[in-house]
């Protein structure tokens, strides 16, 4: 898998005139990578992800996945949204099966595959529950299982833990890291949470706002195997402080 974004610019027409949301974005994600784009509100990070998903069309520039130019949404770029997007009338099992059903997989095969991914996210016992019976964190785990079940080339995540409380968020971040290590799925995630980005990503793109621009690309050289204690490490805190400085518009203390 190779995702490549070249000179991507997005402009929105509004009544007050055109607004430049993203300017000349260059970014790439390779097979099995966990990449985060971090930025404040107004950095156009959601727009960036929607463009990659094909839910918006670029004003100029291009997005290429494995040599194919993105022209619209498709199952090769699965998306997990910030808001809960489970289909409320379907059981958890049916939700996870739904992507496979849309793609024409047979009943038995998709039941097996969905069960497998429900197990991966640890929700097998809730297979027959309706989404309304689940907590916020569980809903997001189902949404992640649903995306993974269709085996996309890359999983796009739009602040998936933004609506969760602090404790659940931390659990989900750990869960996400484990999941990524077990499945080897390629992930492009956007977040405003610098701590989250450093904790999860191998590489971070720092976006500054108005218009959204890639300010810096940063390799996070922490062990792949992380848990919450890494937040106390000096290296972790340095990465976080550097990104914070960049977001504040200051040059980071340490050049990396």
């Amino acid at each position: 898998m190779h995702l490549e974004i070249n000179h991507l610019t997005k402009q929105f027409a509004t009544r007050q005139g055109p607004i430049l949301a993203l300017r000349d974005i260059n970014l790439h994600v390779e097979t099995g990578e966990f990449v985060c784009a971090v930025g404040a509100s107004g950095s156009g990070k959601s727009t960036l992800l929607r463009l990659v998903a094909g839910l918006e069309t670029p004003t100029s520039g291009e997005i290429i996945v494995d040599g194919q130019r993105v022209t619209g949404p498709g199952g090769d770029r699965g998306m997990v949204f910030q808001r809960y997007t489970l289909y409320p009338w379907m059981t958890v099992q049916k939700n996870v099966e739904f992507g496979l059903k849309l793609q024409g997989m047979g009943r038995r095969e998709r039941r097996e595959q969905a069960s497998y991914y429900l197990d991966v996210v640890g929700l097998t016992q809730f297979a027959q529950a309706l989404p309304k019976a689940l907590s916020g964190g569980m809903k997001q785990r189902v949404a992640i299982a649903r995306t993974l079940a269709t085996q996309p080339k890359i999983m796009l995540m739009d602040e998936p833990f933004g609506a969760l409380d602090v404790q659940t968020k931390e659990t989900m971040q750990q869960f996400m890291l484990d999941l990524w290590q077990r499945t080897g799925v390629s992930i492009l995630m956007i977040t405003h949470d610098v701590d989250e980005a450093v904790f999860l990503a191998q590489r971070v793109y720092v976006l500054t706002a108005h218009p959204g621009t890639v300010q810096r690309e940063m390799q996070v050289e922490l062990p792949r195997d992380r848990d919450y204690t890494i937040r106390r490490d000096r290296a972790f805190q340095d990465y976080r402080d550097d990104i914070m400085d960049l977001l504040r518009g200051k040059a980071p203390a340490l050049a990396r």
Partner: protein
Amino acid sequence: MTPAPSSVSPTSPKTLKPTVFWRLAEDIPRPLNLTLMVLSIAVPFALWWLVAGLDIVSDRFLPSPWQVAQALGRLWTNGFLLSDTAASLGRVTVGFLLAVVVSIPLGISMGAFASIRALFEPIIGVVRYMPAPAFIPLLIIYLGLGEAPKITLIFVGTVFFNVLMIMDAVKFVPKDLLETTYTLGGQRRQALFQVITPYVVPNIIDTFRINIATSWNLVVVAELVAAESGLGRRIVQAQRFFRTDEIFACLIILGVIGFTLDLSLRYLMKITCKWAVD
């Protein structure tokens, strides 16, 4: 720095007084709820019984509950009750089912496609404000006096409301759900039939529950004008012979059947759309 008040100030801030009966948008205790609901039926009934029993009004104008019960028994034994109810219900069923068959696909399409909406919304917006009973003379001229004009009246009187209410429900389908569907590899057609449609099923059932009341009104209106059978026709007959007890009996039957239709649709919703109730 202002000194702290030594005692409670006489003009202490206004606080919300506790209440049970006047709770705003909150539940009341179950026993109170039940009592009030019983009173809702019992008080009017008792008043009726009282006024009829006091001989203020002549029996001929205001029959007593007992006389109405006897009239009901009479209508039952001579078979009119059953045949008239069947006639009225039959018309409502056919007319409303036709409206259902048209309004589900049209309403969903209008909600989902701005193009279809632009094509139909203006004309429907005008026609729905033409009172359905105003069509009766025209329908009689076109279709005669049989079943056709009555069924058509019910159809015309309900179809547009059904369409617009279903259309509105579709507009409220979260965009996120559709975008999720696309990023899972779904096509527009699949989003329409497998996401939008199931999402609005509870709204569709609710729409029908509300509008079937209109069709129940219209069938009686049609029967009052011209009919060989039906509960409306029975009321006109009773009026001719000054049988107010039979009129009361028919009114009660109309109310009970309407209420039963409402309850059955609520029940249908409860068993088919568990996800949408409570």
